[in-house]
């Protein structure tokens, strides 16, 4: 291979490899009814269940409710379509020796994980996009105060929960066991995310814990992005939303670093022998 093709293919080849893996993974996801159900259908009733939560009924008016429901949808989609689906997909591929087999090819380890995760993430983002349209059309949600922060919440939140999925596979010997091993990440960050119970209603130490969990900063960033309200409920200007976003962004970055480290340390590419 000449030097010329080497340089032009430096980026095209990884993208090509990820696309080939993602396409196959997409076919597999389409043929797996249960995974599709988890990804596509599950968030919908949960969003409507959220409507009854005190944080939503306290939001005052349907404008605020639209923002909170979109935030809730994003949280649920990150948990079910990204986190839970990726745990089961990665464990299934690992136990069938697919991951090991893929490592015998030219794809690098990050490319294999990216290709496997891509369809789940694409579905998650599409659902959030549909949710955003619905929030505007049904609940009359206005334009976001700071759209950049919504994008940051989406990208960092996806990264955190995709990496946490990779870490969780290390404790998940079979696909069936995923129903148990995913519970801590599915339940604890959600309960303490501020969506069900406003953080202000929590006692001090618990509030500190809640703010350090991976879903709470996503919810905070979305509240800042969509309504521009601080944790205390007062309205912030555009510049102030950026500075208020600093802590949540740092918390998410720390989770990405920690989960990335843990995944490198514990992720297994083949079944335990």
């Amino acid at each position, binding site marked *: *291979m000449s030097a010329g093709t080497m340089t032009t*293919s430096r980026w095209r*080849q990884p993208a*090509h*490899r990820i*696309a*080939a*893996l993602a*396409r*196959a993974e997409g*076919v*597999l996801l389409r*043929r*797996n009814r249960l995974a599709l159900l988890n990804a596509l259908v599950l968030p919908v009733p949960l969003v409507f269940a959220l409507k009854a939560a005190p944080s939503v009924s306290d939001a005052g008016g349907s404008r605020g409710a639209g923002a909170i429901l979109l935030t809730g949808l994003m949280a649920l989609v990150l948990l079910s379509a990204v986190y839970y689906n990726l745990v089961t997909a990665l464990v299934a*591929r690992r136990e*069938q*020796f*697919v991951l*090991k*087999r*893929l*490592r*015998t*090819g*030219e*794809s*690098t380890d990050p490319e294999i994980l990216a290709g496997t995760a891509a369809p789940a993430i694409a579905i998650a983002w599409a659902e959030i996009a549909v949710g955003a349209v619905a929030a505007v059309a049904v609940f009359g949600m206005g334009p976001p105060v700071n759209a950049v922060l919504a994008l940051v919440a989406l990208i960092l939140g996806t990264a955190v929960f995709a990496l946490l999925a990779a870490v969780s596979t290390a404790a998940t010997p079979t696909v069936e066991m995923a129903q148990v091993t995913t519970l801590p990440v599915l339940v604890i960050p959600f309960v303490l995310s501020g969506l069900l119970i406003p953080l202000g209603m929590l006692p001090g130490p618990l509030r500190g814990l809640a703010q350090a969990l991976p879903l709470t900063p996503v919810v905070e960033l979305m509240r800042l992005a969509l309504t521009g309200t601080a944790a205390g409920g007062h309205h912030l200007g555009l510049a102030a939303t950026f500075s208020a976003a600093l802590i949540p962004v740092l918390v998410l970055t720390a989770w990405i670093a920690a989960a990335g480290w843990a995944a490198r340390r514990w992720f297994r590419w083949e079944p335990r022998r």
Partner: protein
Amino acid sequence: MDDNGVITVRDLRRRYGGSGGRGFDAVRGVTFSVRRGELFALLGTNGAGKTSTMEVLEGLAPPAQGAVRVLGCDPYQERGLVRRRMGIMLQEGGFPSDLTVAETGRMWAGTLSAPRPVAEALGLVSLGHRAGVAVRSLSGGERRRLDLAMAILGRPEVLFLDEPTTGLDPESRHRTWLLIRELLTAGTTVVLTTHYLEEAGELADRLAIMHQGRIVRAGTPAEVAASQPARISFELPGNAREPVPGLAGTRVSVTGRNVLLQTQDLQRTLTALLGWANSRGLVLAALDARPASLEEAFHAVAASGGGPVDVNDNAEDGTA
């Protein structure tokens, strides 16, 4: 490094379960080299360390100790440099069962820099007619052939085959051998593990028998077989008054009327035996004379535990 040594392995060690007493040494100091265009076979009972050795050559695992070079690179540290020149067939298939054969080929081809057409690769293993079938519906032998097709899809210079014909019917096994020979003729270097000694004898230019993590025999199939004596067996007729004569360099064992001679020089011993029988007018029933076989060498290793031999001479021959 010598130009002919496509693969060199020096004092390779591999350990599972960390250091300390609870760990397990799967590979305990293995040295060999593989020349360009030859087929090198690793034989051994289950747990001998064949696959553990292969995984290091394939770049899937780092060695605990020792040095491995494949095409001049460290296959683990420099995976990106060597992978496009390697084809690997694992012991376990490892393709998603819900994809069809054609979808599997398309996915795999999409990850390779210079793949053959998928249809051509499937044709080489006679799977073209199964392109639309889900992997889960293939027979064990068909899956093995799909694995092989994917391993050669990237036109590799070095091909690793971990038990490539397990589960194949004799006809498919034969066709696989023909395909492997064609690849060898085209210059591909092949490292193969197998449980079928016939396969190793048929295909290998050189081979090594592993036992408990070490290489205990190495050389050409003929050399390794010759480590065992040739065997002559017969039944002593009922009218024989005298015992079998002592023959130089021969071990005689008699069980009832059954006699077994073991010798390093089959022709001389057989001539002497037949001369003796002739001169006494004896008819030796069930007379059977056979040279040492790879199979006997293998069973001798498995039975005795076969002390490790110094194969450095062979390894140096390999790179000379």
